[in-house]
C-alpha cells in the first residue's frame, strides 16, 4: 500500500505535448479513476506511474520516493492491461506465477501462492490451461491474478474492461470493487466509460486534452461540475447546455430570443457575458399546461429505455432532452416543462468554467418577437 504524488508532470513526444503539467495526490488505499475521452492523456499518465513511459518534466513519487529514474520492476506497481497481455505460451499457473519466478522464489512457495490467488479469482479449475483456451472473462481474471500475486503497493488498470461484452463488464466491475475492498491497495483505474468511473471510484479525475478538468468524489463531480466539459462528460443522457447572453444582472437571453431570469445574488455574471445554462435531463419537470412558469417545447421523437423514457425536444434552436419515468403519460406533439431553480448550472461560454453555485429560476418567457 502506498500513496502516490504526481507533481507538475509533463509529457511530450518530440514537439507534440500530450500532458501539460498534471498535479495529483493519490491517498493510501484510495481507488482513483482517471476518466476522459481517448487521446486525453489518461493512459499515458498511468503508464508513467508504471514506468513504461518516460517523464518529460516534473516528478512522480511513490511513498515519498521519487521514481522518475526507476525501472518498472523497482516501483512496486502491478498492471492489468487492456488486452490482458497474457503470455500465450504459458499456462494460467505459469502466467500468474511468472513474477515470483523472476523474483527467484522456490517452486513450492510459488505453487502455494499461485493456488491461493487462483482461489481468490476463481480459476482453480483452469490452472493447466493456456490463455487461448479461456473465455474473455477468465482471461481477465488471469490478468488480475497475475497483478495480485506480487502483493504490489499499487494496482494500475488500463481500461481492463473495454474488451468485454456489456454483461461481463458489469460483473467484472463488481469483482474489481469487491477485490479492492478486500485488499485495500492503492488503485489507479483508467477508463473512458463514465458509468464504470462512477461505480468504481472513491475519487474521479476527469482529464481533457492533457489537463485535469476536475478531481473529486463521483457525487460531487456529478452535482457540481467545475467545467462545461465535466458537466457534459459525466452523466447519461448528457446534460442540456443552452447558450445564452446576460442582458441584465438577473436575466439571460438565449440565442432564439427566449429569456430566463436568474437570481443576481447567486450568479456572478457580468452584463453582456456569454454563458451556457446547464440542466440535466432528469432534473427537468414535466408539468400540466397552464402550470405556473411552464414552457412549451416541441417533441421530435422519444427513446424508450425500459425503466424510463428519453424525450428529444427543441427549446428554441437548441436540442433539449427530457428524461421521463415511463409511468407517466406518453408525450406527443408538445410538452410543458419547468426548469427547477436548484438544478440549474451556469458556465462561462468562453472559458467553460462554472460561474456560480445554483441559479434561482424566476421565470421563462418567450420574447415578443417569438
Amino acid at each position, binding site marked *: 500500500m502506498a500513496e502516490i504524488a504526481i507533481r507538475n508532470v509533463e509529457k511530450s513526444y518530440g514537439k507534440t505535448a500530450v500532458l501539460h503539467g498534471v498535479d495529483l495526490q493519490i491517498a493510501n488505499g484510495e481507488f482513483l479513476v482517471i476518466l476522459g475521452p481517448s487521446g486525453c492523456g489518461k493512459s499515458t499518465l498511468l503508464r508513467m506511474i508504471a514506468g513504461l513511459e518516460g517523464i518529460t518534466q516534473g516528478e512522480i513519487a511513490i511513498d515519498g520516493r521519487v521514481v522518475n529514474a526507476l525501472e*518498472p*520492476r523497482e516501483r512496486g*506497481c502491478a*498492471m492489468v*492491461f487492456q*488486452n490482458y*497481455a497474457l503470455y500465450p*505460451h504459458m499456462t494460467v499457473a505459469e502466467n500468474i506465477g511468472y513474477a515470483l519466478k*523472476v523474483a527467484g522464489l522456490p517452486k513450492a512457495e510459488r505453487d502455494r501462492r499461485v493456488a491461493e490467488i487462483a482461489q481468490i479469482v476463481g480459476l482453480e479449475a483452469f490452472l493447466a490451461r493456456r490463455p487461448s483456451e479461456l473465455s474473455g472473462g477468465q482471461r481477465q481474471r488471469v490478468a488480475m491474478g*497475475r497483478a495480485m500475486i506480487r502483493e504490489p503497493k499499487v494496482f494500475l488498470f488500463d481500461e481492463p474492461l473495454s474488451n468485454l461484452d456489456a454483461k461481463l463488464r458489469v460483473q467484472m466491475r463488481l469483482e474489481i470493487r469487491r477485490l479492492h475492498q478486500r485488499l485495500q491497495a492503492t488503485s489507479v483505474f483508467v477508463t473512458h466509460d463514465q458509468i464504470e468511473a462512477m461505480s468504481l471510484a472513491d475519487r474521479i479525475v476527469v482529464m481533457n486534452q492533457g489537463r485535469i478538468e476536475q478531481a473529486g468524489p463521483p457525487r460531487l463531480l456529478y452535482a457540481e461540475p467545475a467545467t462545461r466539459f465535466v458537466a457534459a462528460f459525466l452523466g447519461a443522457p448528457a446534460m442540456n447546455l443552452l447558450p445564452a447572453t446576460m442582458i441584465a444582472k438577473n436575466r439571460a437571453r438565449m440565442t432564439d430570443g427566449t429569456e430566463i431570469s436568474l437570481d443576481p445574488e447567486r450568479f456572478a455574471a457580468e452584463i453582456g457575458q456569454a454563458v451556457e445554462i446547464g440542466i440535466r435531463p432528469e432534473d427537468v419537470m414535466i408539468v400540466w399546461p397552464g402550470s405556473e412558469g411552464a414552457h412549451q417545447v416541441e417533441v421530435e421523437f422519444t427513446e424508450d429505455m425500459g425503466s424510463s423514457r428519453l424525450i428529444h425536444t427543441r427549446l428554441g434552436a437548441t436540442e433539449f432532452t427530457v428524461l421521463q419515468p415511463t409511468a407517466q403519460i406518453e408525450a406527443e406533439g408538445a410538452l410543458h416543462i419547468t426548469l427547477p431553480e436548484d438544478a440549474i448550472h451556469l458556465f462561462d461560454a468562453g472559458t467553460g468554467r462554472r460561474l456560480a453555485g445554483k441559479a434561482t429560476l424566476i421565470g421563462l418567457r418567450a420574447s415578443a418577437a417569438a
Partner: protein
Amino acid sequence: MAHATGRPFLEEEGRSLLLPVLVWIALVTVLPLVALASAALSIEGAPGLGPLVGEWMRPGTLRAVGNSLVTSGGAMLLSLVIGGGAAMIIGIARIPGRRLFALLFTLSMLIAPHVVALAFKTMLGPASPVLQALGLAPPPGSPNPLVSLGGIVLVLGLHHAPIVMLTLLAGFRQVPHHLVEAAQMDGARVWRICRDILFPLLAGHWLAAGLLAFVAAFGNFGIPALLGLPINILTLPTLIYRELTSFGPSVLTGVAGLALLTMLIAGIILLLAGRLQNRDASLSDAEAPLRAFWKPGPAGTLALITLGATLLLIALVLPVLSLLAASLVPSYGVPLTRDTLTWQAFGEVLLRQQATREAFLNSFRLAGLAALLLGLLSIPFAFAMLRYGGRMRPALLLLVDLPYALPGIVVAIAMILVFLKPLPIAGISLYATPWIILLAYLVRFMPLALKPTLATMAMLSPSIEEAGALCGARAGRRLVDLVAPALAPAMGAGILMIFLMAFTELTVSALLWSAGSRTIGVVMYGLEEAGQTTEASAIGIATIAVVSLAMLLIDRLAPLLPPGAVPWKPVEDG
C-alpha cells in the same frame, strides 16, 4: 447476380479473373516440374525408378550431396549466429543507426553470390589489399585459402545471414508489445524477457530462419562455383552445371535426376520451414507490435555499434573495397598504389570489349522486360488470388512461390526440358535463344513481384470494393479503379526488386546462355574462370552500383508500402 454458392459477393462476381492465374501456375510451375520428374524417371529411355536411384547412388553424386549438406549445414549455423544476433539487437535495442545497419546488411544479401564470392576471394587471396596492408597476405602464387570447403561455408554463412535476420524481424512484428510490458511489470530484465518471452514465442521463426538459410545455401550456385569448382569440390548445383556443360544435352535426363534430388531435399525443408513459421502465434488487429524496448547505457551502445560496424566491415565493406581495388590495377596481383591505379579495366568491360558491352545490354533488356511484364501481371494476379482463391488460396500461394523458393539450377534444368523440343504449333525451339532466358526469368521471379502486391492487397479493406460494387462497378472496373491505384507503389517495388535480382543473376543464365545471349553474370564468371580477375572485378563493381541504385529507389517507395513489403525495414523505432 444469383448467390447460389453462398460465397460473399466480392468472391463471386468476376471469378473468371482467377483463370489466368491458374493457367500461369499450370504452365510455369506444374508443367516444368512434371517435365523434370518425367525426365528423371526415364533416364535410360524407358520409365523406371532403378536408373534414377542408380544416378543418385553414384559416388560422384553422393560426394556432391555430402559436400552440399556439409557446406549448407555449416553455413546455416554461421547465419543463425550472425543473423540471429543482428535481429535480436535491432529488434529490442534502441541504438542509433539501426535502420542504416539493416539496409546495408540486406544490401550484402542482394549482391549476386558470384560477385560476393569474387569479392571475398580478392579480400583473402595473396593479392589482397587488406591482408597486404596488415602484412598477413599469403606469398604470391600460393593458393587462395578461401577456395576450400571452409571458404564456401564462411561466404555462404555470411551471405545468407540477412535471411535469418529478416525472418526473425518479421517474427518480431508478430509479438504484441504489451507482452514485453507485462514482463517488465512482472520484474523481468532484458535478458529474462528475451529468454522467457521472445525466444519461446519465436521458436518457430528461429527454426524456420535456420532452414531457410540452409535451403538458400543448398541451392546456391555462384559461391561454390567460384570457391569449389576450381579445386573440384562439387556441390549438387555445381555438379549439375559441370555435367551439363561438359557433356551437353545428351546427359540431360541424368542431370534431371540430380535436379529432382536437389528439388526434393530443398522442397521438404521449405515445407517444414513454412509450417514452423506459421506455428508461432500472430498478432491480432488490436495489438501494437513489438518496439525496441531496451535502451543500453553509453558503453553498451558503443559496444553494439562497434559490433554492427565490424560485421558490416567484414560482410560488405572490405570485400567490396577489395573488389574495387582488384578492378583498379593493370592486372591481378599488382598492388594498388597511386602509380598503378588505372581505370583501364572499366574502360575495357564498359566501352571497348564487344562481349561485355553486349552482355550489359542483354542483361538490361532481359531483366527490364521481365520486371515490367511481371510487375503488370502482379496486380491482377494478387487481386484474383486473394479475392477468388477461396480454399485454394494457400495452395496457390505455395505453387506460385515455388519457382523462386527452389534452387535456380532446378528451374534452369526444367526450362531446358520444356523448351528443348520445338514448340507444338510454331515448330521452332526456343533453346539457345534469348527468349528461353526471358521465360526463365518470368518463371523464377514472379514471386518477387507478388510479394509486395500480395502484402498490400491483404491490407486493403474489402469494404472499399463493396462500396464500389454498390455503386455498380463490376469486378474489372473495381480492379482498375479501386485496387490498382492502391497496389501501384507495391508494383513499383516489385519491378525494381526483380530488375536488381535478374540483372545480376548467374544461376539460370549459366545453363541457358547461347552465343548471342550472354548475360553479365555469365561473362563475369567466364572472365574469372579465364583468370582475368581484374576485368571480372570491374564488372562486379558495376553491378553492385546498379543494385545499390535500385535498392535506394525501393527504399524511397517503402513509406507507401505496408510493413513487411520491403524486406529490410526493421521494427519501428519506439
